[in-house]
């Protein structure tokens, strides 16, 4: 049946009332997909299936354990997932398209809404990409401050992963515990940027404002206290039989598999590949601070847990060094054609006001034909922007390299052969953010 507008809707030929072609394509894919364990199961199936174990289950998109709107269509044999097809895009807002209609600075608040667990990292990634495209030199103090805030964002993201991951495993109380830590971080972000969640504090060419003494006091207190918190979680979890049994040997990927599938971030490092953009292409001052890139060899969910916990400790180390080495100076490039002028200039000089107006209206205009890629190590992995300019104030093309997107592709592979009860653990341990994966 098709209605007057030409769309096929509910009808006799389709069991799907809504988006029939989309759903049919997913089920066709599920049938036709070849997976590595298919042969083994087919041999078993020759013995007969009197109890009819086979079933197809839709997990999501609305499900608390999917960390957003992730839809997993799985074909199960008993409790074992035989094949899985992930369907994403339920949070697709077309940010890359939107970026083409915004000036570079105007697009900044959109990046907050992508990886909404660690918005500061996204701001910095966007700023660095534009700064590379235009060739802006950012003052040192701004770069050190960006590093501090990026590492706080990493801790914030890992805290959410830990709390939610443990809630998936059945321990609700730790969720509240980690959110106490996130609350401290929110207080810092609130003091720094005036917003708890979507900070938009970074600017092209620097920062919007320097940190207040109160913010430094809060950061110092957080850095001093947080090591104790991590020690508490380690004492609770590192020898916790339930937590270890739920995680060990779940979703194991060898180093070669992880590289082939293209996992990034902690998921890749848990399989033994020490790929970290902070080491590979040191941006900001990551080349000058002392930190370790934690790796594990096992490649299972437990390894990912250990890697992320260790990363939080390393973040603390980086923040301490940044606080010690923080120089005085300006926090934004003094170049009114490439960065916002300070409010003093805007309010008290005519040129400043004109520049402010022009920067808001047109913004920076990189040369025609310029294109560059700039990546950062976000909490989820390699997060990059590939920008192409046509010489105007709007990007011609802004391609977002999303770590959650690539990690979810690995999840499809990891789910095959695991138990359906472990699917929830796996989604948690991969740590996807759908705002980022769906763009």
């Amino acid at each position, binding site marked *: 049946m098709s209605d007057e*507008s030409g769309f096929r809707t509910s009808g006799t030929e389709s069991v799907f009332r809504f988006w029939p072609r989309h759903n049919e394509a997913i089920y066709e894919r599920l049938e036709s997909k070849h997976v590595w364990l298919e042969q083994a199961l087919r041999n078993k199936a020759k013995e007969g299936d009197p109890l009819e174990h086979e079933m197809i289950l839709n997990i999501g998109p609305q499900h608390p354990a999917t960390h957003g709107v992730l839809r997993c269509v799985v074909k199960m044999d008993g409790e074992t997932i035989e094949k899985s097809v992930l369907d994403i895009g339920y949070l697709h807002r077309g940010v890359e398209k939107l970026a083409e209609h915004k000036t570079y600075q105007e697009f900044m608040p959109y990046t907050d809404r992508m990886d909404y667990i660690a918005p500061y990292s996204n701001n910095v990634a966007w700023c660095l990409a534009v700064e590379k495209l235009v060739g802006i030199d950012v003052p040192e103090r701004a770069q050190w401050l960006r590093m501090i805030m990026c590492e706080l964002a990493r801790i914030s993201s890992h805290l959410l992963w830990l709390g939610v991951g443990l809630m998936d495993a059945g321990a609700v109380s730790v969720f509240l515990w980690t959110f106490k830590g996130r609350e401290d971080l929110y207080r810092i972000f609130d003091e720094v940027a005036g917003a708890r969640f979507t900070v938009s504090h970074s600017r092209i060419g620097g920062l919007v404002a320097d940190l207040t003494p109160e913010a430094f006091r809060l950061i110092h207190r957080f850095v001093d206290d947080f090591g104790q918190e991590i020690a508490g979680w380690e004492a609770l979890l590192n020898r916790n039989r339930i937590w270890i049994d739920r995680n060990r040997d779940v979703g194991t990927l060898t180093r070669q598999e992880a590289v082939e599938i293209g996992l990034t971030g902690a998921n890749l490092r848990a399989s033994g590949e020490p790929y970290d953009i902070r080491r590979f292409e040191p941006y900001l001052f990551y080349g000058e601070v002392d930190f370790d890139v934690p790796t594990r060899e096992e490649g299972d969910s437990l390894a990912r847990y250990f890697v992320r916990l260790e990363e939080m400790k390393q973040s603390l180390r980086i923040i301490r060094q940044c606080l010690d080495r923080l120089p005085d100076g300006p926090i934004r490039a003094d170049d009114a*054609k490439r960065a916002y002028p300070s409010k003093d200039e805007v309010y008290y000089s005519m040129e400043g006001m004109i520049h402010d107006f022009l920067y808001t209206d047109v913004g920076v205009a990189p040369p025609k034909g310029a*294109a560059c890629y700039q990546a950062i190590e976000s909490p989820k992995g390699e997060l990059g922007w590939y920008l192409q300019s046509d010489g105007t104030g709007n990007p011609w093309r802004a391609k977002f390299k999303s770590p959650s997107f690539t990690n979810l592709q690995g999840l499809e592979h990891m789910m095959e052969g695991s138990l359906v009860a472990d699917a929830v653990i796996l989604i948690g341990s991969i740590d996807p953010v759908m705002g980022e994966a769906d763009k």
Partner: protein
Amino acid sequence: MCSRKARQVTALAEMPADVEHIPPAEESTPSHRVLDFFFTPRDAPAPGGDNPLIQSTTQAPQIIRALCDRFGKAILGVEEYAGEQTVLVETQRIADVCRFLRDEQRFQYLADVGGSDRFVEEDRFEVFYNLVSFEKGKRIRLKVRVDEAALTVPTVTGVYRASNWNEREVYDMLGIRFQGHPDMRRMFMPEDFEYYPQRKEFPQMGIPGSLPLPPRTPEGPLQYDPYPAAHDGPTPKSYQEPPSEIAEEE
């Protein structure tokens, strides 16, 4: 400035000899901060050099030379901007080039694949590949161009498994089909959607009626335009909706 100085000199010469020469007071610094002006935007992209964010990983002249030696005419050119080298490859040879880079140059990791619409240019679409070598510490970008009439690119899923979803995304956004791809479905948009939104002619606000959305009431019709007022349509009133059986039962 020069003329003023010259005038000062003549004025001094006319003065009587017994008056001591007093050097002119130095120009005091202005009370406001002097702003830099860059009136003329640079037209041609500079190859880098002074870019503060330049990375050594993106410069791989040896690898590019090896590529040129191996593939010759299939390497159409090398672009450079901000210290990043982009190798333009003949479209049909992209899988071979990728296999060579993976097997012989140790680029085991594919970071990203994406597409771009160049609109009025000759070969309208381009697809770029971002490859990483952990051992060599290098990153390289390959690029192929495809015409609107052909609109097919050979897949690299046989070389890099990681490109599967990325190629699906390019297909979804730009409509470029990847020959030999095992699963050429749309990535984000549902199959029922018939446009390619990342193309330049697709309007930013979308096309009303292009995608059915869930009904507002359990038995109501599917919605084709959730915001009719934005497209000069009538705003539906709640009393115009069909009565819900479920609501009446309650």
